[in-house]
């Protein structure tokens, strides 16, 4: 058949192939560009933000028309297909990346990162394996891989981490490290419930919004910080089989007033599976001694073999380290004091 083609047919075929390639390239470019925000998108500001090396963040959620979040399990909301979230990261005045999450029709979740250009007028899809952006001051900023996104988002009770009952509670923690005040128009728990977009959520938790019950204000903030930065992996296995199989549980159940006490107990009584070389003692925290224990040590480290959290940060969070140290040193009783 090819032998029967004349020069004109060949040129037509080549032109058609070129057009197809151009269309495919155009489609790929369109696929790679960050879409405009849906008109229905609402902003929100979690009370316990994730530490991201000091980057400032803005967040949006868009829920599909006519659908609502199933809040019947208050600690593990189920989001309808079509839910979209995005989080924009800026360093100084520069927008660096926007991460998106979408609940797809097949039930799976899609995680992507888009990198903003120097002109700050467009963002394009980052490689699935992640990439490095060099900022104006020479800082190397790591865009996460899609595996890294899943590492955090698929470990916890729900793949959406910053939009839940505790994070949206209007009873906000004034000592939460790096907390930003809510912006005008932000969705919080009550506004979400009033919008009809949260179904089957216990009314009593709307009337008395979730709050971490801790003996001291510093304890409340410390447990909130650990919940937001660590609780998605150190989660209760009853909510997820993606949780790490260790005794240390740092996720707070907003429906259980004793949840914080349970978290504290795992901190005081569990042994770390991580053992520094030569260390016989594997206590996570030592009441009264903020320098001891593997938890503060791993928070201080940014050696990738040691650091906690293990990804998403290359700088230790000095504010949170100081808070945790103060809490351990001043608020937690020594073992002798807790003995009956």
């Amino acid at each position, binding site marked *: 058949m090819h032998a029967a083609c004349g020069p004109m047919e060949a040129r037509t075929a080549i032109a058609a192939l070129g057009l197809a390639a151009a269309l495919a390239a155009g489609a790929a470019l369109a696929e790679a560009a960050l879409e405009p925000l849906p008109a229905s998108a609402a902003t929100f500001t979690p009370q316990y933000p994730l530490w991201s090396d000091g980057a400032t963040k803005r967040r949006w959620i868009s829920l599909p028309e006519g659908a609502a979040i199933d809040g019947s399990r208050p600690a593990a909301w189920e989001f309808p297909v079509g839910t979209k979230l995005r989080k924009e990261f800026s360093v100084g005045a520069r927008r660096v990346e926007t991460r998106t999450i979408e609940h797809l029709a097949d039930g799976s979740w899609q995680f992507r990162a888009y990198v903003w250009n120097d002109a700050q007028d467009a963002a394009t899809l980052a490689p699935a394996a992640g990439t490095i952006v060099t900022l104006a001051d020479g800082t190397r900023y790591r865009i996460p891989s899609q*595996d890294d996104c*899943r*590492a955090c988002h698929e470990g916890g009770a729900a793949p959406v981490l910053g939009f839940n009952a505790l994070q949206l509670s209007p009873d906000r923690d004034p000592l939460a490290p790096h907390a930003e005040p809510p912006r005008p128009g932000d969705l919080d728990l009550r506004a979400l419930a009033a919008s009809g977009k949260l179904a089957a959520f216990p009314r009593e938790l709307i009337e008395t919004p979730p709050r971490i019950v801790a003996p001291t204000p510093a304890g409340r903030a410390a447990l909130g910080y650990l919940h937001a930065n660590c609780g998605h992996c150190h989660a209760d296995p009853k909510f997820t089989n993606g949780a*790490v*199989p260790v005794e240390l549980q740092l996720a707070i159940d907003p429906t259980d007033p004793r949840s914080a006490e349970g978290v504290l107990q795992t901190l005081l009584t569990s042994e770390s599976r*991580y*053992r520094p070389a030569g260390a016989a003692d594997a206590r996570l925290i030592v009441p009264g001694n903020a320098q001891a224990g593997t938890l503060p040590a791993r928070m201080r480290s940014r050696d990738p*073999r040691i*650091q906690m959290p*293990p990804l998403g940060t290359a700088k230790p969070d000095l504010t949170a380290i100081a808070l945790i140290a103060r809490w351990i040193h001043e608020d937690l009783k020594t073992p002798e004091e807790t003995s009956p």
Partner: protein
Amino acid sequence: MTSVRLIAAALALVPTLAVSDEAQIVRGQYLVTIAGCNDCHTPMVAGENGPERDMTRMLSGHPEQLVMPPLAVRPDSPWETVTSTTFTAWSGPWGVSFTANLTPDPDTGLGRWTLKNFKDTIRTGRHLGRGREILPPMPIPMYRHFTDEDLEAIFAYLQSIPAVKNRVPEPLPPPAALAAQ
């Protein structure tokens, strides 16, 4: 009558499931063998005919009693990677890695892991799929292509072998990072 048939059908399934589980474990053993897992995860000892695997510690990783001396690789040396006589400690530009205990011991091995933890580890190259990166010489770039069925069989086999209590040490940083500490 229908109930009798249902019960009979259910009873007929029981041995089928058992055989299926056994077949999965056998396939897992086959995959573990040909993928060379024992090469690094079962310590090597001196035998009568030369080095051989210590199958009494099968797949239990680097022996915790074997404390390795300081790093063997010099910056000016053309040699880049060296291993211990056990084949369970590996020194290279990444530091020193110690092979993991893959037996089902709950405190020091995979006894508390779920199948998802195991799959996530191999697929992402991160400990438990969420923690630190798995270090060389673990061939994650190749192993991440195991099918779900393969990984399920491997995990079933690893959960069926004798548990060995052996707390493998944490990896050591490379010389430059060590000097900076």
